[in-house]
């Protein structure tokens, strides 16, 4: 199961990277999010999986597709210069990071130790709510403020005249 969802995620992401058409890329993003939600389920966290689908694929991807349609930029424009250096170095950096990641993960003793923890019970919304509103009250309020600020900021940025 894990392998399936992992492959869905990664292949979706790869598809996203190499997709020319932006709308299709948005849909690939949805697929990726789907894979991630599946992974969350395997991690005994149905709450997170649900939230992932609702917020990410339901809101954020919609927003992105909205903007794509608004700006009518289905295709990426043709490039003016070749940017060989940038592309080459980007590939190199990505490969290096990936290789490093694999190496680290496979060799880490910490991860090996933690691997033996038994599967806990699934995450409870009740439990989540209690923790959120008692231990992390301040952060919750601040997050609310942040959302407000972001809203105002977004509106301010696109208004033609204030």
């Amino acid at each position, binding site marked *: 199961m894990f392998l399936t969802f992992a492959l869905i995620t990664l292949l979706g992401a790869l598809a996203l990277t190499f997709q020319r058409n932006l709308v299709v890329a948005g849909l690939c993003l949805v697929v*990726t999010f789907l894979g991630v939600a599946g992974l969350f389920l395997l991690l005994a966290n149905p709450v997170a999986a649900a939230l992932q689908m609702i917020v990410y694929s339901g809101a954020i991807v919609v927003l992105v597709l909205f903007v794509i349609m608004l700006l009518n930029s289905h295709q990426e424009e043709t490039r003016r210069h070749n*940017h060989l250096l940038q592309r080459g170095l980007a590939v190199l950096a990505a490969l290096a990071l990936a290789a490093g990641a694999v190496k680290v993960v496979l060799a880490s003793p910490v991860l090996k130790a*933690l691997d033996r*923890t038994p599967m806990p019970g699934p995450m409870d919304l009740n439990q989540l709510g209690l923790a*959120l509103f008692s231990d992390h009250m301040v952060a919750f309020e601040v997050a609310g403020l942040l959302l407000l600020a*972001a809203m105002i900021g*977004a509106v301010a940025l696109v208004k033609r005249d204030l």
Partner: protein
Amino acid sequence: MNPVHSLLCGGLQGYILVALLLFVIGLFTVLNRRSALMQFMGVELMLNSANVALLAFARFRGGDVQGTVFYLFIIAVAACEAAVGLALVVGLFRHRQTTDTDRADALKQ
């Protein structure tokens, strides 16, 4: 456990590896694509990889609820970022009639 077994059967190493590879792909998307919206999607990929890693660690530390709480806040921040970022893209488009970030090089020396 055999690391390959762990990888294939949903051990911690597997999740972390997925997270890291997802991050790398997201980074590559940001570096390689010129459209601002594609770069935004790459950023979302990177955020999600962080989410995966976070929740994987939460599960393997005995179902810690703090992991999910933090995940919640990450979603909140991602939403804000999406709103403001897309507003910026719209603003950029208004000025330059393009979403190509390579055209936004007014700070060039």
